[in-house]
């Protein structure tokens, strides 16, 4: 089992190199080679993820994960912002599918409602108004491509390593304090009253966090309105004589 860190480490490096080659750097050279590197490294990552023991579960999980990760890569590497937004939406759908697959129904649909339904539509709205074809060359370049590719790959590598190491040793279902234990799952997200349980948790244990988040959003909204109101202050245009 000692080769796990080595495999994941090399996969991380491959991912960083491939991502760097794929990012829009102003030159198209090496993009297909970069795609190949990313594909190999994702295959290496997938080979290290513990299996669920049932080919249906395994294939559903791997397909959803592949959709989420590959479209995330496509999001940052496509040069047309509208396409990036669409790939981001597909990545969100993959993530929502993973949530649903785990039984977290609310998180799954909330991801779609909040991100795909509201935020991304607003992105698209702005992008279309901005007319990406007319933008300058430097707007379509990726800035700091090397560092960002490395950081992204490192995050993926460290997370995968953590998950793999968690699943080694005794089965997680049998550990008493684990959030994946049978009792915790049946009383929690897999319960029949999924939403009622979640609401009770949010508005008792995490009430302060909910209120703070709500206040933050309200402040942001008020700030936006204040900025808009400043822009629309009459700038003496009415006084111009129509003589």
């Amino acid at each position, binding site marked *: 089992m000692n080769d796990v860190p080595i495999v994941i480490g090399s996969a991380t490096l491959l991912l960083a190199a491939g991502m760097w080659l794929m990012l829009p750097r102003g030159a198209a050279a090496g993009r297909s080679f970069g795609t190949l590197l990313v594909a190999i490294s994702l295959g290496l990552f997938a080979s290290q993820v513990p299996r669920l023991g049932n080919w249906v579960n395994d294939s559903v999980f791997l397909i959803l994960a592949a959709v989420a990760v590959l479209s995330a890569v496509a999001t940052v590497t496509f040069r047309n912002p*509208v396409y990036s937004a*669409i790939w981001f939406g597909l990545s969100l759908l993959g993530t929502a599918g993973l949530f649903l697959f785990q039984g977290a*129904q609310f998180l799954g649909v909330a991801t779609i409602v909040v991100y795909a339904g509201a935020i991304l539509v607003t992105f*698209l709205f702005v992008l279309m108004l901005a007319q990406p074809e007319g933008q300058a060359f430097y707007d379509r370049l990726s800035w700091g491509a090397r560092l960002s590719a490395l950081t992204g790959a490192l995050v993926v590598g460290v997370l995968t390593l953590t998950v793999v190491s968690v699943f080694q040793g005794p089965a997680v279902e049998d550990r008493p304090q684990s959030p994946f234990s049978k009792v915790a799952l049946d009383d929690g997200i897999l319960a029949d009253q999924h939403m009622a349980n979640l609401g009770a948790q949010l508005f008792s244990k995490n009430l302060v966090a909910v209120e703070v988040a709500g206040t933050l959003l309200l402040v942001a909204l008020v700030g936006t309105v204040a900025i808009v109101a400043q822009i629309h202050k009459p700038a003496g245009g009415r006084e111009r004589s129509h003589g």
Partner: protein
Amino acid sequence: MAPLIVPLVKIGLLVFALLTAAAYLVLLERWIAAWVQDRKGPNRVGIPLTSIKLFGLGQPLADGLKFIFKEEYTPAHVDKALYTLAPITILAAALAIFAVIPIGSVLPLDLPGTDGPIKLVVAPGVDVGMIYVFALSSIAVYGVILGGWASNNKYSFLGGLRSSAQLIAYEIPLGLGILGVVISTGSLRLENIIFEQAQSGVWNSFTQPLGLVVFVVASFAEAARLPFDLPECEQELIGGYHTEYSGMRLLLFLIAEFLHMVVAAFLIVILFFGGWHFWGMPVPADDIISWSVAGLRILVLIAKVLAVILFFMLIRWSWPRFRFDQLMNLAWKVMLPLGLVNLMAVAAVVEYQHAREIEDLSTNAWLPVGIGWGVAIVAWIVAALFAPLHTDNRPRLDVLQPPAFEPNSLRSK
């Protein structure tokens, strides 16, 4: 394999029924349009190769064949990938919504390998049913936006922009209308929402008339039906976001549009008009239901949905299209406050019932019904006084001040 076969059969039947229903709803819409406009409408196409006319019931078949045999033309200036993706997205989202919508309650069919009666919903037991509907209807926006953008045509693009603004704006009153029902029921499952109304015999439209108004108006806007069809108004934008589409791709857009109307009708019936419930029908538990009751429930639900669809189609010929500023005013200045007022009233009533431990709504219905109607009337009057709907479509001279003509200004630039 039985746990897999039952859902697959359900999905197959549902998709078949929906596509057929969409085809015949188009015929119904054309009949109603003809009736309203004092024409005869489509009444010729019957059984092919004979002279039997059958009131024109063969028309959807002929329409479908026409769409299939039309040239599917892709203009050279479009963005090919997104141009193809847009109609697929919108139809897939519209069909996927039906996964949680109950078509009746259960069938007392005892198949080997299944537990208990067959539930007449593709995905039973989804605890977030209502949010799922909400999520997928927000995915459907993508079809419209992408279709408008990928067509690379000014009219399509304007249609896409208008529709994204309109759908984002009206999602909020839609959600507020849903929230009122969800709070009074205490569940997001559509099956539970129906069952709650069936048990008490008090439909949500009686206790929340204001919520009903807000929800119906918002769902008209979400389905982009007249008077809210600004994304594709023929007089201004040719065809809006599907101007550049032809053949089967256009058909996908049109079917999706009709399915949105069907979804809206189902939701209005389920949330506010008791679903499969009608007074005098027995309300047994799911596992002792008889075939007659199960069948009757399906019939009642479908009849109610058809009635709502008829209402949609009559409205189409009764109300002129809004101007865009009227549309936005209606969303933000009228529907949003009305939705909030309804939500507060419902929350207050529910809180009072909790405090007094009133469980059985059927004998204590006067309080929520009275409060609901009182709040609705007061809020309606306030809205009518302070945010009147301007239906005068002439240019507003107080806003639109044409700059005075200055001969020198043209030359100097």
